[in-house]
């Protein structure tokens, strides 16, 4: 615990951690303020009803148009059902920003940036000790090397959790200030009836399904940082894989080995409403692949660090 405290203090004594956190906050505030500034306010129930009604009329006329093919008609009929539900429950039109849609966006932004920041910190938290030579002051203490390494890894995860938490709280506060309790709601048709999704469940799903890839990318970056001793190289490779994984997958999806790569098994593709990139993947299989890679990354990092001669 004391070693984690040490790492935490060192992390926040440097500019990087502050800059990253402030950057995320500014982005959330900026996006919220710009959206709020340019939107036509629909503050009263009448405004909302009129906006929904206008869209409803539009769909009505389409449904009555004999030139529309039958398969499209069912889509329009569903939209009409949803709009009627919106009017009955005083919800915002789907195209507008409300508390819940802003919350969803802010969470996605916090998770994406939080993941990126964790990659950056994971790569530098150890390699920086090497490049400044402080590693020899750290390793000549009565503390086994694996404890020092573990305290650094744990600190990266605490930092990530903290940044994402700050982003989420700030989003919630801004969303409440700008949109109050105005909600858009996420509607689906189940057996001909409109069902409104529980927003808390959807936030939780978003977070839970994102966590595995965040953890894997962080472990990868931590491993590269420990092996190369250079944060630039580690950050570069880890960010490249994190951001280009979909492009890379597009080219290699047809090969059998692709489904054994960790970034092909991003758990987010199993979120309700998404389809996996490689069709025959299942949630269970992907979970196992992720866990195996996580173990490999951690074991390689710790073994390498435990055995190496420090010449910094």
């Amino acid at each position, binding site marked *: 615990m004391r070693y984690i405290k040490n790492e935490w*203090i060192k992390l926040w004594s440097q500019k990087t951690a502050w800059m990253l956190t402030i950057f995320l906050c500014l982005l959330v505030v900026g996006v919220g303020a710009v959206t709020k500034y340019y939107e036509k306010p629909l503050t009263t129930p009448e405004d909302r009803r009129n906006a929904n009604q206008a869209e409803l009329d539009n769909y009505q006329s389409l449904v009555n148009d004999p030139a529309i093919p039958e398969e499209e008609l069912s889509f329009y009929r569903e939209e009409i059902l949803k709009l009627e539900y919106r009017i009955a429950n005083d919800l915002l039109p789907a195209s507008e920003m409300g508390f819940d849609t802003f919350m969803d966006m802010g969470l996605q932004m916090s998770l994406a940036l939080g993941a990126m920041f964790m990659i950056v910190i994971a790569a530098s938290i150890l390699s920086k000790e090497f490049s400044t030579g402080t590693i020899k002051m750290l390793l000549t203490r009565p503390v086994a090397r694996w404890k020092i390494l573990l305290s650094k890894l744990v600190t990266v995860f605490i930092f990530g959790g903290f940044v994402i938490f700050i982003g989420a709280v700030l989003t919630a506060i801004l969303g409440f200030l700008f949109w109050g309790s105005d909600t858009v709601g996420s509607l689906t048709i189940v057996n001909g009836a409109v069902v409104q999704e529980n927003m808390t469940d959807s936030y939780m799903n978003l977070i839970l399904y994102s966590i595995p890839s965040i953890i894997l990318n962080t472990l990868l970056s931590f491993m590269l940082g420990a092996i190369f001793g250079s944060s630039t190289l580690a950050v570069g490779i880890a960010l490249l894989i994190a951001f280009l994984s979909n492009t890379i997958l597009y080219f290699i999806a047809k090969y059998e080995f692709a489904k054994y790569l960790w970034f092909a098994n991003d758990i987010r593709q199993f979120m309700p409403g998404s389809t996996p990139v490689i069709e025959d993947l299942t949630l269970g299989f992907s979970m196992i692949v992720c866990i195996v890679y996580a173990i490999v990354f951690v074991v390689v990092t710790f073994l390498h660090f435990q055995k190496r001669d420090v010449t910094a």
Partner: protein
Amino acid sequence: MKKPIVEIKNLNKSIKGKHIIKDLNLSFYPGQITGFIGPNGAGKTTTIRMMTGLMYPTSGEIIIDGHSMKNHFEDAIRHVGVIVENPEMYKYMSGYKNLQHFARMHEGVTKERIDEIVRQVGLENRIHEKVKTYSLGMRQRLGLAQALLHNPKFLILDEPTNGLDPAGIREFRFYLRKIAEEQDISIIISSHMLGEIEQIVDRIAIIQNGELIDIRELHQETISQYYIEVAQTDELQAIIGERPVKPYEKGFIIDIEKPEVPALLRALHEENVDVFSIHPVQQRLEDQFIEMTGGGAIDAIH
């Protein structure tokens, strides 16, 4: 003889097929300051890195305070204080926060102990400023503070006087002597700056090409040579007689034991020989060192 605090037994280290340390055996005793010297590339730093756990021996073992470095690292290193080359501190934090940071990695270092050591190294006025504003001398002092924070029984200093001004070096020397005597700490100082080392150490261990080539206690050596400068050299020759003598600068160097010196002076006085100067000649460590390692080759061996 006291029980050694550190024992190095049959230490070997190979890096990429090169045999860098060859069967090194060395012990260090409480209260004794040992100079660890050798030409560049002789294996000083490699040996020190193995004693501090930064590198692992290929074979052999290092036992500190009865604990093997290999099997009980935490217990072995617990009583060791280290400055390896320049003390690299976290520049973005204050000196005090640096000390707190390292204190958290030891058992039982109290706030009072941190304050005490800050006073001892004379940093109390600047301790709350960031390390990046410190001069090299202040960083060295902070380095010493972190090494002594946990009251070590064994202090390892690798090139400790780099960047200290002469006054700083004198103070440093005095301080090391004091803690070695008062707290019975064993100290090892590696250096190639022989002139500085010879005035601090009790004994020297000389390493060359990864092998220990000599250990000697410095204070055992008695001075048996004197330099003398006189006006009438012929009379001097006559008085000295058969003694080995060699001209040196304006005078002579005579092999003579200390108790014989007053008699010589009386004889010179009686013969009306004018004596300008007489003083003992201390063969400097540097000369001995060059003698042992094969003359002038301080930097030539790699």
